[in-house]
């Protein structure tokens, strides 16, 4: 209890939240090709140059679905059994012999307009002003999981050990010491690139600028900071009759097959 009262107000990004809304409108993206919806690119040009925004770019061409990131993530924070901060979905589709399987690594998008922050009744979930990461202050969280309901990406869960809300925190304990996140470190395809998306000198910024990128579920207006190259937007739920699509989430406890 004492820690919550000691919480500095500045940590809650309420003022910044207002200015960001405007920025979001200014940089709203244009529609892309059939393969990927063009994502809103980072807000470098919109007068927010100085804002550090850590994010990730996942180059799906390089992803071989190996799940090393999934397990690295488990190990890094000793994420308990049955829940996952990160996972790799397999999407299989087609008709024999023209069948494909694509891989989609998932993690918290560290959204610039995060629904999880909007609904959190205590301010436990907040955006770090110094790097734009969305984190959970477990000293404040009450475990109500409203945030988990609000996240359009299913990124949040109740940690069965701590009994608080949990999710990918972009490995702040590593990145704040100048190390890439654990999942990035292990990725043998170098499919995951971490960095400051607003820093024109960073690898991630350059890659986003040079490639057609997409974010997930852009229509939800969350403005994700996890970008994808080569995002296959096939979803099992939107398939046409008679079309074979199988999505295996590989998420703990929900590896349901269909």
């Amino acid at each position, binding site marked *: 209890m004492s820690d919550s009262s000691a919480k500095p107000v500045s940590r*809650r990004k*309420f003022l910044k939240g207002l200015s960001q809304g405007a920025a979001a409108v200014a940089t709203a993206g244009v529609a892309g090709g059939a393969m990927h919806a063009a994502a809103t690119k980072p807000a470098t040009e919109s007068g927010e140059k100085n804002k550090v925004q850590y994010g990730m770019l996942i180059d799906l061409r390089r992803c071989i679905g190996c799940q090393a990131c999934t397990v690295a993530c488990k190990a890094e924070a000793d994420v308990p059994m049955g829940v996952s901060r990160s996972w790799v979905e397999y999407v299989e589709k087609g008709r024999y012999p023209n069948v494909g399987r694509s891989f989609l690594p998932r993690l918290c998008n560290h959204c610039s307009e995060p629904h999880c922050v909007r609904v959190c009744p205590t301010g436990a979930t907040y955006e770090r002003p110094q790097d734009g990461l969305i984190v959970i202050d477990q000293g404040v969280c009450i475990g109500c999981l409203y945030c988990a309901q609000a996240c359009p990406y299913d990124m949040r869960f109740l940690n069965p050990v701590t009994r608080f809300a949990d999710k990918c925190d972009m490995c702040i304990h590593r990145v704040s010491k100048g190390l890439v996140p654990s999942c990035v470190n292990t990725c043998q395809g170098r499919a995951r690139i971490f960095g400051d998306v607003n820093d024109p000198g960073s690898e991630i910024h350059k890659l986003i600028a040079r490639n057609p990128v997409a974010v997930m579920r852009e229509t939800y207006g969350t403005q994700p900071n996890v970008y994808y190259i080569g995002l296959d937007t096939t979803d099992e739920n939107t398939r046409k009759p008679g079309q074979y699509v199988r999505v295996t989430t590989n998420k703990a406890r929900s590896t349901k097959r269909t």
Partner: protein
Amino acid sequence: MEHHLIMWHWPMIVYLFLAGLGAGAMAVSGIVVLWGPTGEFRHRAALIARLGAFIGPLPVIIGTGLLIYELGRPFRALNLFTSNFWFMVLNPSPMNWGSWFILLFCVVATIYALTFIPWKALLSGERGERLEARSERLRAPMATVCVPLAIAMAIYTAILLAAVPARPLWHTPVLWLLFTVSAFSTGLSAIILVQRFMFRKPGAVRGAVRREDPAFRVTEYYLVSMKVLLIIAELVVIGLFIMFAHMTINSANFAVRTLLPGGEMATAFWLGVILVGLLLPAFIEGFYLLRTAVLGHEFEWPYVINVSAPIAILFGGLMLRYVIVVGGQITGPIGI
């Protein structure tokens, strides 16, 4: 489809149900106080108002307690109230506002309930008289506050869910109406049920009301009619709810399929909510109502039905929350 984790379980379901029920009961009570009959039905109205007022805060307090208990760390829940005012204004989380609101509701509802305590009978002497008089004076003004508060409370239980776009089944413009109608019908049913237990035997006397009174029958008739009307309203709203979702493209459309035949929640929905919770009581009660209305029979019915119809409605109300809370969680946004 992607199988989502269910994170809000029975405590939340029960909480939403009880909160609606309490709000409904209090609303009914307030309405009766403000616009209820006078004259020959006076005593009956007073009884209903009293029961509603007494029921009002209880389920809300129990439901909230249950939720807090479920969180596991009761004192942590106080964090809901420790964030500063500007945070609340600038980051208007329905749950944050909701918690203040529930607090307010519980306080107001309790005061309102206190105005119904028969002080005279409890405390002899002048103090009893004074309190009783003051209560009676306070009752109507309190009721004017309580009715909107209760309706807001009922709506809040829906807003909590409807506020999140990530749950397409919840994120519909009809949910508040559905939950409000259901709150009224469950609140009313709770009142009826309680008084049925009170008037179990003929000759039972509660205050100024006797079961044999013709007034009793007539009020019964009106109450049951009201309930049936509410059921019909609820059916209409459910129809709207499904239609809205169904006519929406993508996610909501997909989500509502979980309620439609073949969906994962279909059995609970069609059996629990529609059949047991709505159609069955509507038909049975409707039958006796029509007997009176059309054939002019005296309004009389077997005690079993007398009790089971409101129970069925209450059950249906619970199932409605279940279906919506679970169905909303197992469905989600579609599209990668």
